[in-house]
Structures are given as C-alpha cells and as structure tokens.
C-alpha cells in the first residue's frame, strides 16, 4: 500500500510541476492543486497506513499497542486541505480577473511587469 501511494505521490508531484511549466494560466492553477494534493498525501502516508486499528489506549494500559495509524498527520492534512482550498479559490478568481483585463490566458503575454 505504501509503495502504491509513493508512486501516486510521485506522479502527482511530477504532473503538478509539468502543469506549472505549461503556458496556460488554467493549467498553472491545476498544477498548483496537484502539488498541494501530493504533499497532503505524503503527510498522510507518513502517519503510517494501518487499517481498522483506532489509536485508542485500551483500558489498563498507558499507550496504544502498535501498529496503529498516527492521527496527528491526518489532522495536519485537514488544516492543509482547508488552506489550499481557500488559496486555490483565490487564485481562480485572480486568473479570471486577469483574463477579463488582459484578454488572454497565455502566460507569455503576461510579461509587462517582468524585468
């Protein structure tokens, strides 16, 4: 399972970065989304993948018997998902406004502020 997820994460990073290098602004946003999801999945995998073993301390013991899935990374991902959702929503509005103003979605035409 870890191997499968590692491959998925790697592909998400690779496609995300490839999309970031495309010229279309929309693909840029898709790339950012894929990159964010890749890192979220990475954190998820780091918390160990164990099925049907809730991390609850049994009565009379002081710690959870391994193996168990660490719940903290999952909480971190929730935060990260909310943040990347908000940021991507902003980015979508931004490219829409830019498209209305400039009339193109080609990044090569958005170079007037470059130096």
């Amino acid at each position, binding site marked *: 399972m870890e191997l499968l997820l590692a491959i998925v994460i790697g592909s998400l990073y690779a496609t995300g970065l490839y999309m970031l290098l495309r010229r279309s602004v929309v693909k840029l946003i898709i790339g950012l989304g894929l*990159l964010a999801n890749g890192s979220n999945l990475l954190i998820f995998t780091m918390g160990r993948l164990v099925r049907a073993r809730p991390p609850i301390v049994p009565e009379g013991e002081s710690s959870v018997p391994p193996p168990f899935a660490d719940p903290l*990374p999952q909480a971190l991902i929730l935060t*990260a998902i909310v943040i990347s959702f908000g*940021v991507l929503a902003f980015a979508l509005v*931004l490219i829409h406004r830019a498209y209305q103003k*400039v009339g193109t979605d080609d990044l090569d035409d958005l170079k*007037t*502020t470059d130096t």
Partner: protein
Amino acid sequence: MRLIFPIAIPLATAILGLFAWRWRTVQRGLGIAGAAALLLASLELLKSVWQQGPQATWVGNWPAPFGITLIADLLSAIMVVLAAVIGFAVALYALAHIDPAREAFGYYPLLHILLMGVCGAFLTGDLFNLYVWFEVMLMASFVLLALGGERAQLEGAIKYVTLNLMASAFFLTAIGLLYGVVGTLNMADVALKIRPLASSGVTRSIAFLLLTAFGIKAAIFPLFFWLPASYHTPPVAVSAVFAGLLTKVGVYALLRVFTLIFPEDGHTIPTVILALSALTMLTGAFGAIAQSELRRILSFLIVGHIGYMTMGLGLSTTAGLAGSIFYIIHHIVVKTNLFLVSGLTHAVHGSFDLSRLGGLYRTHPGLAVLFLISALSLAGLPPLSGFFAKLLLVRAGLHAGQWGIVAVALGVSLLILLSMMKIWAEAFWKPMREDLPAGGSHALPISPVTERIGMMSRLGFWSSAGLAILTVMIGLGADLVLALAEAAAEQLRNPDLYISTMQRGRP
C-alpha cells in the same frame, strides 16, 4: 501571556475594521490605533525578553511537544518590534496616501491581518504552525497585491501567487518528511530528536527542501524572479510593507531553522548559503542598475540586500549572525522608508519614472533630505546604520577567512551606491523637464493627497521622517543595537536556552 498580544491585537483590529466596513473614518482610526497598540505590546515583549530571557506560552495549556507553543527569544522579539514599527509607519503613511477606492475595499483590515501573520510567524515554536502563519500572511498579501485590479497588479499577482504557493507546497513536503523521521513538529523537540540523525541522507534532503522553500520566500538567488516582477505593481502603501517585512519572514525562517534544527551540518549547507548569498547580492545590484523606474530599482535592491542577511548565516559564526541580525534591523527600516519616499515623490510629480522626475531638491528639500539619509544608509556610509551593518558582516567574514564573500559584499555596496546616486541625480538633482507631455501631475485620476485636509496630507511625510530619524538613531546608537544583535546571535548559536524554555511546559 505577553506573547499572545502581538497576534491578538492585529486580529482584533482587523475584525473591528471589518465591522466598520462602511465607516472609513472609523477604519482609519482603528488602523492607526491598532498599529500603535501593537507597537506598545511588542516593545513590552522585547523589554521583558531582554530582561528575563526567552519566554514561552503554551496555547490552550497543552504541554510542550503536543500543543502549539509560542516562544519568543531575542531574535523573535526584535523581529516583532520591527514588524510593529513598519506597520505603524505604513498605517500613518496610508492615512494620507492610500486612494479612497482601496481604502473602501478593506485596506486597513488586510494590513492588520498581514501584520498578524508576520508576528505569528516570528513567534511560533512549531513548524506546522509556521506554515499556517505563512499562509495567513500570504493570503493577506495576495489580496493586498491584487486590490485595485489594475492590469500590472494582476499580472504581478499571478507570478507572486504561483511561486509562493509552490514554496508552500515544498515547505509542506518537508514538514511531512520531517514528521516521518522524528515524529514531532515542535521546533525545539525536532532539534533534540534530529541530532543523532544529523548526517543521514533524508535529513540532508529535508534541509535542502526547507532551504528551497524559505529561499523562495526570502527571494535568494535562483528563486527571486517573482519579487522584481510584482513588488512595483501595487501602490506604495502596500509595497512598502511588503518590501519591509515579507522577504524578511523568509530570512527569519532560514535563520531559525538552520541554527536550531540543522546547525553546522558538516559545512555543506553553510557553503551553499554563502555561494547563494554572493550570487544574490550580485544579481540584485546589477538588476537595479539596469532599471530606470524608482520602485523597480528598489525592488531589485531588496534582492541584493537579502544576500547580506543570509551571508551572516552562511558564515555560521556568532559574529556573522550578529551582523545578519543588525543588517535585518537596519534594512527593514531603511528599505521601507525608501519606498515611502518613492511614494511621496509620486505624490509630487505623478510618476515613478526617473526620466519624468527632476528638480525635487529645489522644490522639496525636506523630501530630498529624507531620501539622502536612507539612500546613503542603504549604501553603507558612516555614521548611518548601514555602515555598521556592513562593517559587522565584513569583519565577521574576515575573521572566518571567507575572502571571496567579503570582496563581493564590498563591491556590491559600491554598486548600490551607484544606483542610489542615479536616483539622486535623476529625481532630485537635474532640473525638471517641461517638454514631456504625459505622465505629469495630471496623470492621476484623483490626486489622493488633495482630498485629505490639512494635517492629514503631511502625515506621509512625517511617517517617512520618523523612519529616517530611526535610521540615524540606529547609526548613532550602534553600540546599543549591536549589544542587542550580539545577544540575539548568542541565543541562536546556543539553542539550549531556547530548548529548555520550550521544555518548561513539559508535564
């Protein structure tokens, strides 16, 4: 408890400001009052950290490695004070110079959310929490950058947003890997648990991922392109606070992580940082020389100066770190002031283009003095603050035997002087050209200054003058500031105090 205030005050100000959405006078009053309160709270924090050593607050009373810890050592406290000073100066400047449309769409609440993000990033003791504060700060800066919706702003914002989100993704990746390795994200706890693994390959990878992520945010050499493409697009009341604070949050994160979590590390990372610093200085200075628009010159010079700040980190000596911290203190004040002066220049002539400016020395001698103080300080002429900052770094470099970086640092400061003299000669010294039709003072649709009455329109000048006086005072009281910087560097070099402060919250 003190540690909560620099975060809570801007938050409260922003929320109250949102409630007063339709009453712009109330928003202005809140904006300035909130900034003043933040300044007082941060000075109080610095004073108590100076007298009693590093302090920590365990949020929600969760003990150290489990909950989020806010922790302030001297470096954090100094940075919070600087953020508050800049926030106050820019809020004052904005009273006179932000245009009504941007003010009506929430400039002041956004400014305070930005300040909250910056202060939070300086105070947190938890890596994931640092990521969250980065995002708070970024979100506010995205909106501030795009506020107004001019074409240049939107184009600049796309690049700024893309590269900063990429940096966030890298940072998040590094956090994930680090959690997989050490099982904790509390910075002091990570520092303890990563020591036995310091030379392993995965630790090295995490260190370089963090260097890349913070490097993008700090705009160091190969990762700086978003900065000169976006910082000159928003109005000065926005770009001044960006110029002063945002890249320095990246530098602060570099200082923190590479002294606390990855100290020394077999000299690979310090060498890489030194090489990047030299290249950053050179690109910034050469880029600035090629420009002929005030804010573009200043934007490139930000990049150049980041090189000086990371240079002290690359030297990895206490003297070098003290030099870096002194440099940050000096640079934040001076660079913000130069942006404010460029805004005042724009208010006079309606242009940032050097070829359209001129004669300011004759018509506005006060403005000329303000510019000259900041410009000479930036280039590093005695007795202004920049001289001592550069002196410290050069001396630390010589002591460490790094001749190459010292030569680059000295050479680049000549190039910076050249850029500054170009602005002086073009905007202030040469006579104003009358034969240029467009771009004069009529180019602005509404002159925002004339709309405000009496005293208000002078506030921009006085906030800039206050920063100029601060520059001179840092120069004249250099021994005091140096004592502060050296104590902060000492704390960075010996992280045990930081770690034990954090552990006081252990069960």
